[in-house]
């Protein structure tokens, strides 16, 4: 079972968290094209290797944050709060 490093609470068991996939996609603007919106809502890459993902500390502080994780080796590399660039 993975240990997920919550930026606020520290490492906790995976069962405390909810997973929500790719954290690199950004919600388009209303003016953006249908194709961009379709991609945002429906399509996700499924990479083998390093991946930045959303995790939610559902059974803890209820914060969403980004985890850098290797989907192949299961290595958890880092985590960070969801600040925008």
């Amino acid at each position: 079972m993975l240990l997920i490093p919550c930026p606020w609470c520290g490492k906790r068991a995976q069962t405390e968290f909810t997973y929500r996939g790719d954290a690199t996609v950004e919600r388009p603007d209303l003016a953006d094209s249908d194709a961009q919106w379709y991609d945002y809502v429906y399509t996700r890459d499924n990479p083998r290797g390093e991946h930045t993902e959303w995790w939610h500390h559902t059974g803890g502080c209820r914060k969403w944050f980004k985890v850098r994780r290797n989907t192949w080796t299961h290595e958890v590399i880092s985590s960070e709060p969801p600040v925008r660039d």
Partner: protein
Amino acid sequence: MGAFRNSSGGTLDRTQRIRFRFDGKQYSGFQGDTLASALLANGVRVVGRSFKYHRPRGVFGMGVEEPSAMVRLRTGARAEPNVRVTEVELFDGLEAHSQHCWPSVNFDLGAIANVMSPLLPAGFYYKTFMWPATKWMFYEHFIRKAAGFGSSATEPDPDNYSRSYEFCDVLIVGAGPAGLSAALSAASSGAKVMLVDETPDGGGRLRFDDEVINDQPADKWLNETLHELSKMPNFDLRFRTTAFGYYDENMVAALERVSDHLPEPEPGQVRQRVLQIRAKQVVLASGSIERSIPFGYNDKPGVMLASAVRGYALKYAVACGRRAVVFTNNDSAYATVAALHAVGAQVVAVVDSRTQSPGKRALEQLGDVKLIQGSVVMKTKGLRSVQAVEIGQITGEGDSPQKSHTIRCDLVCVSGGWTPTVHLFSHAQGKLNFDDSIGAFVPGADIPALHVAGSANGEFSLAACLRQGSDAGIESAKQAGYEITESVSIPTAPEESVSDMEPLWGVPRMGSRAKRFVDIQNDVTIDDIELAHTEGFVSVEHLKRYTTLGMGTDQGRTSNINGLANLARLREAKVPEVGHTTFRPPYTPVSLGALAGIDFGEHLSPVRRTPLHQWHERNHAHLQNSGAWKRPAYYPQTGENVQDAILRETRHVREKVGITDVSSLGKIDVQGRDAAEFLERIYINRWKSLQIGRCRYGLMLREDGFVFDDGTSTRLSENEFYMTTTTANAGPVLEHMEIYAQTVWPDLHVHLTSISDQWAGMALAGPFSRNVLSSVIGEQAASNENLPYMGVIKARIADVSVLVFRVSFSGELGYEIHMPSRQAELVWETILAAGQEWEIAPYGLEAMTILRIEKGHVVAAELDGRTTAADLGFGRMMKPDGDYVGKRLAERSALTANGRKQLVGIKSIDSSPIPRGAQIIAEPSKGKPAQTVGQVTSACFSPHINREIGLALIKEGRLIYGKTMYAASPLTGREIPVEVVHHIFIDPEGERVRG
């Protein structure tokens, strides 16, 4: 006791005699026996029958590796099938039964399969019963009956199980010499060390072999070490605990058999416990297991692992036979000679397949027993157990052995070498390398925070096991952040000179029909492997599935390597090129009860009770499960049936006044200077314009444009909203909003807090509801001027601060009153008392459902994830300007095109009830396939219009009011004519709610 037990020796408590029954017959053993050692001591040789051929089988090993001696242990509800007798600690009154034989283990009619066995090669069932394909289901029943082992109990399991989470710096798996040596080193650093071992007393081979450590008998060192460790506060020892799986980040799952060694658990004691151990470092000292050599009829009772024979002699003072032959390809089996002599058995010969001479120690152990070098046991003779063996001499490389002579004996002690137990390393994704010198796979490249030591690492000398264990202990403690301050003294053992083993993967068949078993649990022979290879099953994974090699409960611990090596021989490849099948958890079978722990029955999932639950129970509400919630369905009065109660409650609300518990609604406190802006983006309608003290119905979409949830939200102040959600979506809506607040619009200042549990709610509804409310908060406060439709006020009832919302789900004049949960019952009772004058009565979920269908309100049945706001008649709520969740995709052509299903009402034209979930068709189908144009989402009998009614989603339904359609339920064969009408059946103008 028993004819095969020495009167002295072993580590038994001979003062405590234990009685037990096997197949109904009474036997006795001693405290300290296993069922296996006790059966052997009593001369019981045939313990069970084999999987496919029903051949007689006896005890083969002495621990977890045992492939054949399995029984049904205990009786009644506690009966457990396929229990290895080698792991059962004897207790008084133990009852065991042989399995898979009828009428008895010694005379088994199923053994006809053995006679017919030339007709039953690998794949026989697949090939024979393939045609016609439709008949497989028929054949399967009989095949499954003929194959297989024990049957489980049919009564509910009376025992309790639990689960516990453990944390430690260093977890050591296996309390043999390597594991104990690791524990001594690691624990001396102060690190928190946990040691688990599957046996009742640990020690590994030290309990079964004559060894010397620190110039003393090994059992002395063993006892001293266990004593020393047990005094350390940072050391936790768990015997009878099998580490069965390794998971990510050093999470090891283990099964602790808390009371399996007792007749039954003590009161309050669990039977087994699953440990989930999170360790900073893990040391695998899981040892190794001796393997067999396939030779003719090597499966008979009387053929045993040499190490097991030693163990039974040394620990239990049991002679597994009277005249023994040792058959080996390595030095370790020579120790069996002395062990057998010690219990009074005769060793006729040691047959060594090697031409080279054994090492010095082995020769000493041999003594004056005859050594037959360069020879093999070709086959055993004897009907139900071994009576003699045929010896053959290997004349040259690749040649078949030549039969030289026959030896009378009743025991063959076989050793084909040792296989490291690498399962957990493999679970951890560790790569295995094949080590030619031991003929087995060993752990390859290092894995972070995981150390392997001792014979699990392919290191078979005791001295080296102790050294490796100590090194692993020191290293793991260091990596866990501890310093070894004192110098650790490594236990020592004499260095031995050992001759290399020479692999012998099977004795050539030389025209004999004698079966050479590779896997004696699943009856897989070398011939089966050859057949599989001939038929093209040349991958190990295919071989395994085609022949069932290694697929039994023992997972082929004594046989897998032999199988792989034979496949390699046929493929003319090396063993590592053929590879091995994947090791997967669990290492040994884990009972479903232990995995479930306490999570079954009522504990399967939490039950949610509203703050008024006790009141509902006291007042005889019929409670109904609604998701995790227990909610009152109705409150039957004396002599009233279900239907009457529901209709009475419904009419009572329409005609007088009722009150119902709505505490299960989701309640979210939304605060912050951007709270209004945030709701504006979450809901499809406007919120910034909402005045303080007013509430509004809100609808939210998912980002894909379909409706997600609805509810009313109230502006309590400029920057604070009190949001409600549907019961089912209380959690999902909060999570949905958290995603947007934290990840999509983190620039908005908004804070979300679930207050679903902290706040209770009740709905007061009916023509007299204002009268009741007036009597508890005052006439002025409850007046239409002060509290108009969709108004909200703060008030006090029974000195409790409450929020009163002028909202209605029933379509009647109504209010919702919310208050802190702890005061809910007081407020509820106060309102009931005040309402007596107007004959107030509680109503349940059933009445509420009828009331809302009559009013055309939507719930989860209509918000099914496939409906748009416009489908439900809320299209005009969607604000044209500004962004909100789901806006962009709700504008997609498919979601706005003509021809979508729309929410309508339906009325049954005759008096037939409308089947829920029925499909809507335009014409009666007359038994022919018909095109569906919609479906019924909700249905009930409406007391208000005295008709069966429903809500439905029908294609362009709002254009066909008045038309007759048919609600078809193919499941019941009914097609009910219905009239399509507007979905609001009562007070479409809303005069009642506004009045």
